[in-house]
Each structure stands twice: as structure tokens, then as C-alpha cells.
């Protein structure tokens, strides 16, 4: 009983030591192998199985390979315990790919579980089955996914959407269209949870199949706020790609701002610049960068210019922007960033501002997300610094930031600094320089240099600070002691150098100060930079040339003790100095240079020796002559001089930071963070590359349906745009499927299709819905084989019966039944019969047309015949009637009668027809009328015929099935009855097709007794000629009073020449009415129609 404590004393002590861990799975994790797992797996107790599985999982967690237990584990998949099941699934998924053969053993159980009434079990089975990823079972998994895609439980449909990428992974070329079609169906789901998962599947499977999006674009936009956060992230991206592909970029957007009529002017007008309020227009946005960014997003040679659109006149763009902008308030950072990306690319310039605050708010989330967000903000800020310029304070660094975050914030601050904010920013920078993290301090110094470069007004302040820093750093004692200190100094010198570069002449004094500090600056890299500056600025101004000799002497003196990096720089500088040397210093400098070259030639470092040799050769002409200006006679030397001039005397070229990162990736993408295109990264699609032929598709839908057997995925999925998903799916799968209606046949088809698996367990299920979807899927899976099952003749017959039995053809033979209103015995020879007409009343939708036949069988004329409502009720106005009709409360209302034209006189033997329109107040209760004739008043009762309280509802078979599937369970009722009419008929016309005549007689019977629309007649295929079993007729109608659809399905059983058993099934929400009508139909089907003969 206490098996958790294990059998050994050791584990016992362990367990007691950690009292708190009692009851947890700690011991399993610590010693997973202290008992023999194999027998536990075979145990008959669930708890022992459970423990064994937990031990296996512990081993997996610790990285051991326990796949050898696979066969034993698989057996347990049949367990009824949800925990065991879950654990087995966990194990299975981990190893299935490794042990494909054993994994197959579990398939039957999944199949069984897929039919489980518990949605959780179905979902688990589906997830695991799809997760096993074996090519062999792919078709089955696909069938399962297809079935689950129409599951009533949202969770199961969601899992189905998630399973699609798993199947896609298997690279099933032949099934690719079906998978894509399923994606389309799930995208069209009405539950936001499913749509989210479907969006993820879409992104993985067919990110460029914009037809799927096009169909549902508006709906997807509307549903977006309700979709789960994870789905939102991907759906936003998908919608953006669709809009770009369909409509191109927005003319007013940032991406195209450069190519507008007068982009800069436009930009300044709209107030973004005035936000900054300091008139610093040069960096309101970096034109080149923006165009570079947009080029990178699209990745096409200027194609994005071709077609553009405008928010104002494009509904799709407008909706996209509208539905994504509230998502900037989302709790999920990734959603906010995705939404911001859409606004950034698509929104008009003036609206891009709205992404700023939400993005800044993201900086208060976790360290990890902060970093990613900053990387993205940096790109935005590079292109349009003015967006973030007013919010510089948000990028001030707090001590808890990670180093990377600090570095990015610094870069940000140096990007968005403006003349108004620079003083605060510089003050912050001063603080940062004193930060204990010296690497960060060094970065700060570099950032100061960048700021000074961007804003020409401020360098003096910066320079003084930097010089002070250089001084301070160099006096800070033994620098080797402190990590990173050297870096600060190097950066300080480099920053000074970048500032000087802009205008060396005005900073002459700074240069001299730097030269003076050479003695105290000990860091090689910093020294090298200063020495390099000596060479570059050696002829600048008045003072420096005079100092040169001293400096060069000093360099020569210190050469021996320098690092090789500095040595190289000293040699270069010496050469430069010599070239530009003035006459009076030349001799001296020449000596020094010669001395340096001597020293360098013996250096330990071969780089230095090489450089020395090179310089010796180059400068040989200079070193040989005595005066700097002396004209060399030999032309050869002249060339050398030119070369030297060129190598050493060249002026600096301004360095453009643009070249550094000239690749941009879509905001929020992985590629933007790692700065290379990650596999699977795709830029935005080519603008307007996708043309969506909505109308063509609609009108051609019929033709397309004919081509269904091709199963061309994209065509398939784009048909019937406005139908809802499930019905569309039905239509597709049912087109070829109606001929098969029996479980046994289905079974056969399955076996033929895939001999590996038996579906028997599923087909046994009697659930109608289940069966239907099952069969549909099988057929859909193996469209080819199914269609080949259908022999041409059968198909033909099917077609012909469908075509021949239409209401038009049979209309002449439909003889509505007539009822007696007044017996001649009671009415002094006046006989009144009435028949219900199928015409729809003109008065109101609630009225029924009744044809009344007056016959005078007496010998005297009958005068002034009229029918009136007994209560002599006025005809209420139609508005009230429709209102009542809608409220479905017509019972409470007094019946109304639209009176007929009075018969002034009816001669003996004469008959006359009159039309009345009646509204029955209850579908079973007769209506009292008063009959006036010859001045007398006789009460009569007009009985309603249920069959005529409905009106034909003309729908296609697809719509029929969709409606039917929505009306399961309590809305579905059936009754059996026998039918004999056809027997006579068949015998009579022997030459005629038996099926056809059966169909005809049934239809005739039904239509003679009720006002219905014949939707379809389906013929069984595999039947023998004598067996009518499986013949199915579908009728549809709407209840007159409430417009509620009512579906009737009649299924035939039995031999052609004998009495047939009919099953009449009605699907209707109005249960009472439906049941009554069902009885009525069953009744009149049984009646032998004497009138027909």
C-alpha cells in the first residue's frame, strides 16, 4: 500500500527526511529505477501503471532513452483512466518517431477514442494521433482531423487546427490541397478560439494562399479582438500580408512617404515636426533610411511603387487599421508589437504616432521582452527619430537594467536627442560615466560622441567633458586594477576624434591638449588613436606644425616601450609628418624617422618589421634628399612621390553609419533581432500581387462544382464565398457521397482504401451525425476510388432521376386532395368542397390559399352564397400580422379570412370556384366559418391541412444538409410507415425503370398531400435492380407562420415489387408542429390513393 516509500531502507529514510515532499512525485524523479518498471506496466492496477509511467517520464526528463518499453506502454493506451491515458500519450509522443512499427499498434485505440462522447478524450486522441507523425497513418490522421474540424466542441476543433501543421510536416504532397482546404474551413469557424489556431496553421502551412483569407477577410478582422492572444499575433501578421498583397502599400504611409508628391513638405505640415517644437527638421525622418527600410520589408526592386492605395478609399485597409489599433492595449507584449508593426507599415504618417506610447509601456515588462521591444523601437527610431524624441526620459537607464538593455537605451538616446533635450541627456550621460559597470560607461562615452556628431551645436560642451574625462581617467591610478577602465578611455579619445573630425580647424586647441596628454595616457589603443591624429592633423593650423618635432622626438623616445599596435601607428605618423614637413624641420624629422625605421627593423613583431621595410622603400626618395621641396629629377622618383602622397596624404572621408546595418526585417520578427534572415522568414508579399476574383468565383461556382473530382484545393476552397464554412465543406464532401448510405458499404470502402486499419469500431456507432461525417470524410479522403465505385450507369440513373422528378413535370399529376365543407344533405343540395392550394397567399405570409368549389346539386338556384368569418372580424392590417407572425404567437390571434367574391346566383347543376385566403389560428383546430346562402346562415368548419401550413423552401442539397446538421437530437424525429402505391404503378408500366417509378409515386403522394419542395432524390448505387433499399428523398419547407425551416427525409427500405417500408424523418425546431406533420405524412403515405388510379 505504501509503495511510494519504496522497498529499500534508503529510500524510506529519504522520504522521511523530506516530509514536505511526501505525496509529491519527488521520489520518482530522484530514483526512477529503484523498482522494476516492466512488471508495473503490466499490472492490472491503474495506480501501478501510473507509477511506472511516471518513472518512465522521470527518466525522459533526465535524458535517458527508455524507448525499449515502448511496446508495453502502447498496450496501456486502452486504459480508461484519464491519468494513465495522458501519461501514455506523453510517452508516445516522445518516442513515436523512433518506434514507428509499435506506434501503429495504438492507432486503433485512437480511432476508437475519436468516437468517444467525451470531447476531451477526442481531443487527446487527435492530438496524439497527429503528433505521431508517421507517413503510413497520415491519411487516417487527415481523416480524423477533417472529422474533428466539424466537431461540436470548440476545443476539439481547435486541436484539429493545431494538428494541421503536424500533418503538413510530413510533406504529403498529394494531400496538400486537402490540408489547405481544412485550414480554410477552420479559418471560417465562428469560434474565435478556433480561428486563432487556424491562423497559426495558415502561417505554417500556406502563408501565401491569400484566397483563403480573401474569402473571410472582413470576418477575420471583426473576430480579431476576440481571438486568443497567441492567435492574434499570427492573425495580425497574416492580415497585413493579405492587405499588402491585395491592395499594396498605403500612399500616405511612411513606407511610401518619399515617393509622394512632396513628401518632406507634407511631413512637415502634418504636425509631427511641430511636436518636437525645436525646429530641428533635419532629422525629423531619415529619408534614405526610410526608403531602405521599406525596400527591405518588400524585397523587390522598387515594385512597391507600382500600385498604391489610400486609406481614405480602401475599405480593407481601413478595417485593418481599425481592428488592430485597440490591440495596442493588449496585455500581451507580442500582440502589442504585432499591432504596432501593422500601424507602422500601413497607417498614414500622422497616425503612426499612436504606436509610441504602447511601445514605451512595453519597456516596463520582463527583461527579456524589454530587450526585444527595444530592438524594434530602435529601428522605428532610426527611421523617424522624431516619433520618440519627446519621450527621451523613458530611455533613461535604471540600475536594474541588463547590460544589453542599457546599451540599446544608450543608442536610442543618442538617436533621438534633439537640441532641446540634449542638455538633459548629457547630464544623464555624466551620471552614467560614473557607473560601476565600466563597459557601460565606455558605451556612454561613445554615445556622447554620436550625439555630438548629430547635433553640431553642442560639441564644445561635450568636448570639455570628454577631455576632463581623459584627464581624470589617465590619472585614475593604476588602470590595470580596474576592469574595463581602459575601454572608457579609448572610447573617450575616439569620441573626441569623431567630434574633431567634423571641424578640425576650430578644435585645434583640443587636439593640442590631447597631444599633451600622451604622456599620461597609458592605454595602447587610446595612444594609437592620438598618435594617428598627430599624423592626420600634422599640417593643421599654426601651432601644431611647430610642435611636430617635439612630438616626433617623444614618440621616437617611447617607441621601444610601446605596444605593437602603437608602434605601427607611430611609424605611419612619422611617414606622414615627414611628407608634410616644413623646410626648417625637415632635417631633424628625417633623422628621427631614420632612427624609427632602424628601431622598427629590429622589432620582435613581424608586422612592425614588415611595415618598417615597406615605409623604408616608399620613403626612400624622401630620405635621400635634403630639402623637402627639392624637385626630384628622375621621373621614377616622381611617381614614388605621387604614390606616397596618395597613401599618406589623403584626406579623411566622412564615414557613413548607414552601411553598418543596411538590412531591416519586418518589425517583431526573429530576423530583426538576430539580424539575419532566419529560415522561413519572408518579406511582405509583392504589393497587389494577389488578385481576388470574388465575383467570378461566385458565378462559376456551379461549373467548379462539376470539377470537384479533381479536388483542386485552391479552386475548391474558393467556391461559394458567402456560404458558411461547414456547409461549404458538406457540399464538397457530399457531392460524390450520396450514393452510399449504408454502414456496411462504407465499411467496404474503407477496407479497400486502407487495409491497415479497421474502422469497424467506429462504424458500429449509431450516432447519425457521427456516421455522416465519417462517411463524408472517407470519401473525401479517397475521392478517386469512390468515384470509380460509382458505375457510369448508376451515375446516369442518379442524374436522370434527379432531373425527371421535378415539381414542374410532376405538377400535372399532382392532385391535391379535396375535403368537404358542406354536405349536400345538410345544405339543401349545396355541396361545397375545398382544396388547399400551393400558391402563396398574397395577403400575408400567414395566410393559406384555399380553393372552394361550390356545386349546386339541387334543382333550384341558390342565391347569394358567401363565406364569412364567424366572428365577422375585420381584416387586421398587415403590419400587425407580420408582427404577430414574427412573435410566433398567432395562436392567440383571432383567425382571419379574406372574404371571397360573393356568388350572386348558382344555377342548378352549376359549379363555381372561389378562392379564399385563410389564416388558421392553430394548426390542428378547425376554423369556424359561417356560410350564407339564400339568406340563411350555416356554421361550417374549415379544417386545416397540416401539409399546407408550410410553404416550399427552395434550397440546394448543400444547404439542406447544413441545416439538417444544425438540427440534431431533439429536433429530429422519425416514424416508420409502409407504402404501397407504387406496386400498382410499377406493374402497370413495366417498361419503366422501377426506381424511377417508385420515386415518382412517392413524390406524387407527398406533393399531393402537402406543399413541399423536392430537394433531391438519391439512389443507392450498389443495389440490385430489385432492391430499393437506400433510396432517399429529401423535401424542404418553411412553416408558414414562423418561417422556420422544416426538413423531411424519406428513406426507403424493401424490394421494388413489394410493399416498401418508409422512414420519414423530420428536422425542425418547432417540435410540436414537426411531430404533427410527421404523423400527418405517415398517415397519408399509408392511405391507398384511390384518387390516383
Amino acid at each position: 500500500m505504501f509503495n511510494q516509500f519504496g522497498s529499500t531502507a534508503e529510500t524510506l529514510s529519504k522520504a522521511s527526511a523530506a516530509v514536505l515532499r511526501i505525496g509529491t512525485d519527488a521520489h520518482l524523479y530522484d530514483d526512477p529505477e529503484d523498482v522494476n518498471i516492466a512488471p508495473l506496466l503490466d499490472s492490472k492496477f491503474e495506480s501501478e501503471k501510473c507509477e511506472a509511467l511516471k518513472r518512465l517520464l522521470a527518466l525522459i526528463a533526465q535524458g535517458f532513452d527508455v524507448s525499449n518499453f515502448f511496446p508495453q506502454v502502447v498496450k496501456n493506451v486502452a486504459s480508461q483512466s484519464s491519468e494513465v491515458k495522458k501519461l501514455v500519450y506523453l510517452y508516445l509522443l516522445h518516442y513515436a518517431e523512433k518506434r514507428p512499427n509499435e506506434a501503429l499498434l495504438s492507432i486503433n485505440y485512437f480511432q476508437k477514442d475519436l468516437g468517444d462522447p467525451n470531447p476531451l478524450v477526442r481531443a487527446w486522441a487527435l492530438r496524439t494521433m497527429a503528433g505521431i507523425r508517421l507517413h503510413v497513418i497520415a491519411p487516417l490522421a487527415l481523416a480524423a482531423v477533417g472529422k474533428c474540424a466539424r466537431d461540436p466542441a470548440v476545443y476539439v476543433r481547435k486541436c484539429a487546427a493545431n494538428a494541421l501543421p503536424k500533418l503538413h510536416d510530413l510533406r504529403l504532397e498529394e494531400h496538400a490541397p486537402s490540408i489547405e482546404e481544412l485550414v480554410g474551413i477552420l479559418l471560417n469557424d465562428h469560434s474565435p478560439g478556433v480561428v486563432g489556431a487556424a491562423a497559426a496553421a495558415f502561417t505554417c502551412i500556406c502563408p501565401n494562399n491569400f484566397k483563403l483569407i480573401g474569402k473571410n477577410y472582413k470576418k477575420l478582422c471583426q473576430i480579431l479582438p476576440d481571438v486568443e492572444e497567441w492567435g492574434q499575433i499570427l492573425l495580425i501578421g497574416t492580415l497585413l500580408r493579405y492587405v499588402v498583397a491585395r491592395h499594396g502599400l498605403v500612399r500616405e504611409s511612411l513606407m511610401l512617404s518619399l515617393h509622394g508628391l512632396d513628401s518632406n513638405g507634407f511631413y512637415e505640415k502634418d504636425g509631427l515636426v511641430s511636436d518636437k517644437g525645436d525646429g530641428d527638421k533635419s532629422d525629423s525622418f531619415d529619408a534614405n533610411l526610410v526608403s531602405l527600410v521599406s525596400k527591405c520589408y518588400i524585397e523587390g526592386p522598387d515594385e512597391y511603387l507600382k500600385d498604391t492605395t489610400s486609406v481614405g478609399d480602401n475599405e480593407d485597409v481601413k478595417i485593418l487599421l481599425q481592428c488592430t489599433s485597440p490591440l495596442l492595449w493588449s496585455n500581451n507584449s507580442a500582440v502589442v508589437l504585432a499591432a504596432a508593426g501593422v500601424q507602422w507599415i500601413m497607417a498614414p504618417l500622422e497616425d503612426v504616432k499612436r504606436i509610441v506610447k504602447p511601445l514605451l509601456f512595453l519597456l516596463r515588462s520582463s527583461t527579456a521582452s524589454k530587450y526585444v521591444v527595444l530592438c524594434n523601437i530602435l529601428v522605428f527610431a532610426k527611421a523617424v527619430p522624431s516619433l520618440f524624441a519627446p519621450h527621451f526620459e523613458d530611455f533613461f537607464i535604471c540600475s536594474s537594467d541588463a547590460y544589453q538593455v542599457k546599451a540599446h537605451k544608450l543608442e536610442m538616446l543618442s538617436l533621438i536627442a534633439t537640441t532641446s533635450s540634449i542638455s538633459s541627456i548629457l547630464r544623464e550621460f555624466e551620471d552614467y560615466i560614473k557607473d560601476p559597470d565600466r563597459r557601460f560607461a565606455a558605451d556612454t562615452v561613445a554615445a556622447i560622441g554620436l550625439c555630438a556628431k548629430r547635433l553640431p551645436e553642442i560639441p564644445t560642451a561635450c568636448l570639455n567633458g570628454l577631455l576632463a574625462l581623459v584627464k581624470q581617467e589617465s590619472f585614475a591610478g593604476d588602470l590595470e586594477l580596474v576592469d574595463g577602465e581602459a575601454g572608457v578611455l579609448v572610447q573617450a579619445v575616439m569620441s573626441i576624434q569623431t567630434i574633431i573630425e567634423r571641424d578640425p580647424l576650430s578644435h585645434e586647441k583640443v587636439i593640442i591638449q590631447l597631444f599633451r596628454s600622451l604622456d599620461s595616457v597609458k592605454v595602447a589603443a587610446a595612444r594609437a588613436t592620438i598618435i594617428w591624429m598627430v599624423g592626420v592633423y600634422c599640417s593643421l593650423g599654426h601651432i601644431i606644425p611647430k610642435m611636430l618635432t617635439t612630438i616626433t622626438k617623444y614618440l621616437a623616445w617611447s617607441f621601444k616601450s610601446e605596444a605593437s599596435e602603437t608602434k605601427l601607428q607611430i611609424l605611419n605618423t612619422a611617414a606622414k609628418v615627414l611628407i608634410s614637413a616644413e623646410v626648417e624641420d625637415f632635417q631633424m624629422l628625417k633623422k628621427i624617422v631614420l632612427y624609427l625605421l632602424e628601431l622598427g627593423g629590429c622589432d620582435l613583431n613581424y608586422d612592425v618589421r614588415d611595415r618598417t621595410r615597406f615605409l623604408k622603400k616608399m620613403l626612400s626618395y624622401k630620405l635621400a634628399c635634403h630639402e623637402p621641396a627639392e624637385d626630384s629629377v628622375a621621373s621614377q622618383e616622381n611617381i614614388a612621390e605621387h604614390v606616397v602622397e596618395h597613401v599618406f596624404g589623403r584626406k579623411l572621408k566622412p564615414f557613413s553609419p548607414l552601411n553598418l546595418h543596411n538590412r531591416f526585417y519586418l518589425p517583431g520578427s526573429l530576423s530583426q533581432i538576430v539580424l539575419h534572415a532566419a529560415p522561413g522568414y519572408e518579406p511582405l508579399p509583392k504589393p497587389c500581387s494577389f488578385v481576388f476574383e470574388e465575383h467570378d468565383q461566385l458565378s462559376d461556382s456551379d461549373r467548379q462544382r462539376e470539377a470537384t473530382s479533381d479536388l483542386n484545393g485552391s479552386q475548391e476552397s474558393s467556391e461559394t464565398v458567402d456560404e458558411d464554412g461547414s456547409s461549404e465543406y458538406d457540399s464538397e464532401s457530399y457531392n460524390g457521397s450520396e450514393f452510399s448510405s449504408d454502414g456496411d458499404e462504407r465499411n467496404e470502402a474503407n477496407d479497400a482504401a486502407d487495409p491497415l486499419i479497421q474502422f469497424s469500431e467506429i462504424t458500429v456507432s449509431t450516432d447519425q451525425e457521427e456516421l455522416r461525417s465519417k462517411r463524408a470524410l472517407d470519401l473525401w479522403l479517397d475521392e478517386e476510388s469512390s468515384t470509380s465505385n460509382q458505375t457510369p450507369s448508376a451515375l446516369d440513373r442518379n442524374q436522370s432521376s434527379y432531373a425527371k422528378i421535378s415539381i414542374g413535370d410532376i405538377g400535372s399529376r399532382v392532385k391535391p386532395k379535396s375535403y368537404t365543407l358542406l354536405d349536400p344533405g345538410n345544405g339543401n343540395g349545396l355541396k361545397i368542397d375545398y382544396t388547399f392550394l400551393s400558391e402563396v397567399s398574397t395577403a400575408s405570409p400567414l395566410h393559406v390559399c384555399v380553393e372552394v368549389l361550390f356545386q349546386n346539386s339541387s334543382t333550384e338556384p341558390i342565391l347569394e352564397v358567401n363565406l364569412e368569418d364567424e366572428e365577422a372580424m375585420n381584416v387586421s392590417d398587415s403590419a400587425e400580422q407580420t408582427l404577430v407572425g414574427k412573435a410566433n404567437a398567432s395562436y392567440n390571434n383571432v383567425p382571419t379570412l379574406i372574404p371571397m367574391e360573393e356568388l350572386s346566383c348558382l344555377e342548378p347543376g352549376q359549379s363555381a370556384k372561389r378562392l379564399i385566403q385563410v389564416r388558421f389560428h392553430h394548426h390542428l383546430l378547425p376554423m369556424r366559418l359561417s356560410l350564407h346562402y339564400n339568406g340563411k346562415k350555416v356554421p361550417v368548419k374549415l379544417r386545416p391541412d397540416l401539409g399546407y401550413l408550410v410553404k416550399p423552401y427552395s434550397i440546394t442539397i448543400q444547404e439542406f444538409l447544413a441545416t439538417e446538421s444544425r438540427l440534431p437530437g431533439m429536433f429530429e424525429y422519425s416514424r416508420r410507415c409502409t407504402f404501397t402505391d407504387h406496386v400498382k404503378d410499377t406493374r402497370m408500366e413495366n417498361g419503366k425503370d422501377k426506381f424511377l417509378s417508385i420515386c415518382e409515386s412517392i413524390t406524387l403522394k407527398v406533393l399531393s398531400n402537402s406543399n413541399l419542395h423536392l430537394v433531391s432524390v438519391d439512389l443507392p448505387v450498389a443495389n440490385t435492380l430489385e432492391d430499393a433499399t437506400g433510396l432517399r428523398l429529401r423535401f424542404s419547407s418553411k412553416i408558414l407562420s414562423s418561417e422556420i425551416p422544416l426538413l423531411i427525409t424519406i428513406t426507403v427500405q424493401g424490394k421494388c415489387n413489394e410493399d416498401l417500408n418508409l422512414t420519414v424523418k423530420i428536422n425542425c425546431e418547432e417540435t410540436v408542429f414537426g411531430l404533427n406533420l410527421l404523423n400527418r405524412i405517415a398517415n397519408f403515405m399509408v392511405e391507398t390513393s384511390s384518387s390516383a388510379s
Partner: protein
Amino acid sequence: MEEASGRRSKLTIRSEREREREREREREQYRSSMLQCIFLLSDSGEVILEKQLTGHRVDRSICAWFWDQADSLKSLPVIASPTHYLFQIVRDGITFLACTQVEMPPLMAIEFLCRVADVLSDYLGGLNEDLVKDNFIIVYELLDEMIDNGFPLTTEPNILREMIAPPNLVSKMLSVVTGNASNVSDTLPSGTGSCVPWRPTDPKYSSNEVYVDLVEEMDAIVNRDGELVKCEIYGQVQMSSQLTGFPDLTLSFANPSVLEDMRFHPCVRFRPWESHQVLSFVPPDGQFKLMSYRVKKLKNTPLYVKPQITSDSGACRVSVLVGIRSDPGKTIESITLSFQLPHCVSSADLSSNHGTVTILSNKTCTWTIGRIPSDKTPCLSGTLALETGLERLHVYPTFKVGFKIMGIALSGLRIEKLDLKTIPPRLYKGFRAQTRAGEFDVRL
């Protein structure tokens, strides 16, 4: 000339095509799923457990690679390793590492890992190596529900709790006694299908309670000149609701205009907020964060911290004064001050006239003040000895200030009212507020 341009266009076309083909190949080569694997690493780099999410398995050697990287790379949230892209977050010493090989939104992975960490610490009552190991089955089961094929499946805590029971004392005892207690639910939680997945359908309570808490954190930076450079409030509206049925709540503020920016729980409807700044929502059951907001540009902090430092010939004198700057009207509690002594400080001798000072071996110094006494100003003073060879201190520490004030929201945000569409019997409503220090830095 023409010929040349023609050739060039042909070239570009070819390169276009090649690029497309290449991309196609890439797509072929890499699986289409998003996250491929999640590892949980202990603080010593040991893999506590791995959860493979796709058929394309990731070998755990990637963890060793990751752990061996230099700090500067290892601390990045997104790392491009030679074989995979790695996403990581660190929570309470546990590293959550996720791998992928294809493009996916990195923030999605990071947010998901954060969500996993939240859920786990909620389930296990904290997060550390032992807790994860002790409950590894639950962790596995949770991960399996939370992510399917690399894409998040069910992350709503309410639903997860119904699917997988959190470990509690009762279930532990039960499992000891009977050896069998399943924590996996047999039935699908009702929330999965509803349009408000955060709420279980029709919970029942005998007494109905709603509590609203304003929890604010103050972020402030005082620079070395003693100036307040930045002062803002990051606040949350936290709610605890135990309401029967399907309640529809409306929460309005007296002064919504102070809010600079906000983020909402998915239950909040956007429209009412857009039109008249009213929060209208169907709340989740239990505790949740309704919204978070930011209030910028505050003028004052409740506390002042005045550090002074003088350094001369290898020794420094430090003194720090803490006092109330602007009285919030409520007691300021649990005041702490912590700072990191610079590397170059070899030893420190610090004492205070109020509260306690502790210096840890990693040179972290914490001064716990508690409440400010009425009779004196708390003062920390002492000397720091610098490493030999250093004359003066050239880097200065930053003081992190901590405090807590109950009963007040310093941002000034006020809740006007909380309405229920249908008022259930026995309804209790409660409002609270508190402010504590967030990133409150005082630089020396």
C-alpha cells in the same frame, strides 16, 4: 546600352528566382512548427526536464552549448546558436529555454515562457529546482496542455486549473494513503468552448464578493545633482471576484485623464473605454489583473534620500540621510535602501542611527529602516576603504530605494464606482490601494 540593361534585368530576374527557390528549399528543410522544444535548467545548468514539442527532436546538448557561452551572449533573451534559435527567460533561478529553427515572433516565445513560469509558480507555490523536480509530472501535464506542436494551446489559468488539479495537501495525503489520486480531469472544462474562456461557466457562491486593489509602483530616478529626473507610476488594477453566474461589471475612474497609457486583460471591452473611458467586462473567477496603467511626470517622491560621499587618500566617508519629503498622509512602511559597493572598495564600515545595516559577501549593502521615526532623521554613515593604490573613488554606487504605503495610490487615480448589471444577493464590494517603490534609483 540597351542590351546591357536587358542583361541586367535578366540577371535580377534569375537572382529573384534563385532566392525564391532557396527560400522554398529552406522551408522544405525546416519544420513548419514554431517552438520545437522547451528545457528547464537549474541554476547550475543541469537540465531538470525537457519537453519535445514536435517530431523534430532537439538534442539536449544544446543546453550544454548554451551554458558554456560567455555571459554577454548567455544573458541575451534571443540567441542564434549554430543549430537553433534559443529564447530564454530566467525566473527564480530556473532558466526556461525554448528552441526553434524557423522564423517566429520572438516576443511570442518569450511571453509564452513567462506565462509558463507564472502558471508553474502558481501551481507549485513558488519556483525552484526542488519544486519542479518534486512535481515533474504536473509540469509535464501542464506543458502538454499549454502548448501543442509548438503553438500555445490553453494558457488560461482558469481552464488549466480545471484540467489539471494543482497539488494541495489533500491530494498529497490522499496519494500517500491510497496510492492513487489522479489530478487529470476527465471532463473538458466548460471555459474552452465559451466566448469568455477566462471564466468557468456558472460558478456559484453563497456570498458574492468583488474587491478592487490599486497596486502602484513608483519608478523614479534622482540624479547625482539631487534632481528628480524621472518620476512615474506603473500601476495595476487587481481584482478578486467571487460572483455567481455571469456578472457584467463596469468600473469607472473619477479622473481617467491622468492615465498616460494602459493595457487590459482580454475580458475588457475596447469600445466603452474608447468612447467614455469606462471599463466594462465579464470578470474571470478569482484573482486577476484587470488592467495596468502608467502615469507619467509626477512632481514628487514621498521620500528623500541624500547621499554624500567624500573620498581622500584611499578612504571614503559616506553618509546617507533618509526622510519624508512630502507626507502622503499614510505611514510609509518597510523602507529599505540597498546598493552595490564598487569593486574597488576593499572593506566597509557602515552604521546607522536607526534600522539595521547588512553587507553581504558580494558587496551588496542593505539598510533596513522600516518606518521613519518621529524624533530623528535616519542616517547611515561610515567609511569605505579602497583597494591599495587607489586614491579616490571614481565610480559611485546607485541606491535602490524600497518603501510601501498602504491605503493610498500616489498617482492620484481614483475609482469612482463599480457597477454590476444584475446585482446578486449579498454583494460585498471593497476597494483598496497601495503604493510601493518600483525602480526607485538614487544616484550618488
